[in-house]
């Protein structure tokens, strides 16, 4: 048995926070409080949580429109993220970005990108700057993104420039509604191998396995060895977006993956490997639930943005050159 450490319980707490956040978003959606669309991260929590746990202060993260989990994992406050979902002035982007495009540079989040593959470009560029600061950038993206130009162009660019960037492909088996094998020639990791980029395929539902991979990858890239590509095998428990009932799943597939729920795996390992008790873990869940209820109520009461402060397309905008209706 390993040493019982608060940090390990905190990994569980973070994953449980993400799951609870997503369930709260879902219920607010169904009540019509959240408009538009959302893409939930339920089932994939271990990937963002494991990688974020290995970040240093100078590192940066780029994620996708399925980005609530990455935002919470990097430290975006639960309240400001929920306020953003509801379009409130106190949201992390003042209500301007909504669910798909959250940015929080104070918490190392370059952004969540609404176009598939966008995170890959953002992290690659950031790595040019981070190379000067001993920092590393991470791009999170799904299996669908590996067929975008962003993927090939940036993986190659990062490799030839030896940039400190970790490419994390969260393979959840489906690109939107379509199984990845139906639309992808060859393997996923094989593409990184063809470019001779260091790569590994891991169990993305075991947060300690993800964390260990993250620590090794960060060290490799931080030491000037160039990029790393990780394929993290995982599964989303919900549809692609709120309008997707996920009828494309194979019979029994969801049930089989529920047995590999990252929260379930973490609970078992906390008990068997780290000496925690079910009661201790239950009490973490209860405290997250209580806190989420408060967040939810606060968000619903938070004021909307002020129509008198619409902002500008440019920084330091010279209004004489500008136009508005």
């Amino acid at each position, binding site marked *: 048995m390993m040493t019982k450490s608060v940090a390990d319980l905190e990994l569980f707490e973070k994953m449980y926070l993400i799951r609870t956040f997503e369930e709260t978003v879902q219920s607010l959606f169904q009540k019509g409080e959240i408009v538009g669309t959302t893409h939930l991260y339920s089932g994939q929590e271990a990937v963002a949580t494991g990688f974020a746990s290995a970040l240093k202060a100078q590192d940066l993260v780029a994620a996708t429109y399925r980005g609530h989990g990455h935002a919470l994992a990097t430290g975006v406050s639960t309240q400001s993220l929920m306020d953003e979902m509801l379009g409130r002035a106190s949201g992390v982007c003042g209500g301007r970005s909504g669910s798909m495009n959250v940015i929080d540079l104070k918490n190392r989040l370059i952004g969540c990108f609404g176009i598939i593959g966008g995170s890959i470009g953002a992290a690659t560029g950031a790595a040019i700057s981070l190379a000067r600061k001993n920092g590393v950038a991470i791009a999170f993206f799904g299996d669908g993104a590996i067929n975008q130009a962003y993927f090939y162009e940036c993986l*190659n660019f990062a490799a030839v420039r030896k940039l400190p960037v970790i490419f994390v492909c969260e393979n959840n088996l489906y690109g939107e509604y379509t199984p990845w094998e139906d639309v992808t020639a060859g393997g996923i990791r094989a593409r990184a191998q063809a470019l001779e980029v260091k790569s590994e395929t891991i169990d993305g539902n075991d947060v300690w396995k993800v964390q260990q991979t993250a620590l090794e990858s960060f060290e490799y890239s931080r030491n000037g060895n160039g990029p790393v590509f990780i394929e993290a095998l995982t599964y989303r428990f919900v549809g692609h977006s709120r309008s997707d009932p996920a009828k494309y799943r194979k019979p029994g597939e969801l049930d089989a993956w529920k047995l590999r729920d990252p929260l379930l795996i973490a609970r078992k390992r906390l008990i068997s490997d780290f000496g925690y008790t079910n009661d201790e873990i239950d009490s973490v869940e209860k405290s997250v639930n209580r806190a989420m209820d408060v967040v939810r109520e606060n968000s619903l009461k938070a004021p909307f943005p002020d129509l008198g402060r619409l902002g500008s397309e440019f920084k330091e905008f010279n209004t004489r050159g500008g136009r508005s209706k």
Partner: protein
Amino acid sequence: MTVTTDELSFRNAIREAIDEELAADDKVIFFGEDVAEAGGVFAVTPGLREKFGDDRVFDTPISELALASAAFGSAVAGMRPIVEIMFADFLFLAMDSLVNQSAKYWYLSNEQKSIPLVVRSAVGGGVGFGPIHSQVPISWFLGVPGLKIVAPSTPNDAKRLLKAAIRDENPVLFFEHKGLYSTTEIRKEQTAHESLGKARILQSGKDITLVSCMKGVAECLEAAKMLNEIGISAEVLDLRSLRPMDSELIQSSFSKTKSLLVVEEGPITGGWAAEVIAIANEVNTGAGKKLWRIATDDRPIPFSPILENAFFASAQVILDSVRERHGK
């Protein structure tokens, strides 16, 4: 012919601007296809890599989307990148990063960070490159809030405006007309730092305003001389900045001359000339009073329902606008 040291070519103006800004600020970096070792396919940037090193001036793969991403991401993380897209026809490969990432970041992030990057790109025809290496894609970007577009017409202005673009806090597309690279003029000392968004009157006149940018400006000046011989006094307005466009100067010139011709190198349908004419029309006298438009503000579309609902014109807004103009 001996070129004196007082002469500045357009090509050297660009190199000097990059050189001086690289020297002035360690955060400035410059990269693109064949720009470092080869010094650029138009021989604009030789010697910069040797002077500043491969960390700050470097060659890249032929990957325009990755180049635009590299500029965006490095700017988010604190750099001030200058990227060369060899021919502006290749910009279409870089659209997502430029339009959805760089241009929207300042607004979308609720003003956490702006993106100070410059995309330099060669445009224009007349030098035998054919249909896919000669376009001027200004109008593709004209309707993108958050982007600035600069298009200089002379060497001194090119240097001044490129330095201003590099120092600007926002993403700037800087277009260089291929037909101008070898043009020269007497060097003028750069004094005060320039800001973007201002047009200039190159020649005053009272009968007609000729508006253009880049290579078209020289043609307008030449035409103005010929017009003068037949008794028509032409004012020549060099736009310099296409976005933002200098509405004030366009309108004041048109108010004076009551006649305005825009000379655009680009397809007539959907071109930037239409924007100039619309702006001139908005002085709201004569026909302009009954010919106008309602559109959304020059900002990205916001998420928050209260902001989004206010963003689009309702039937009531249309009604009020018509009533006002028709006095009912």
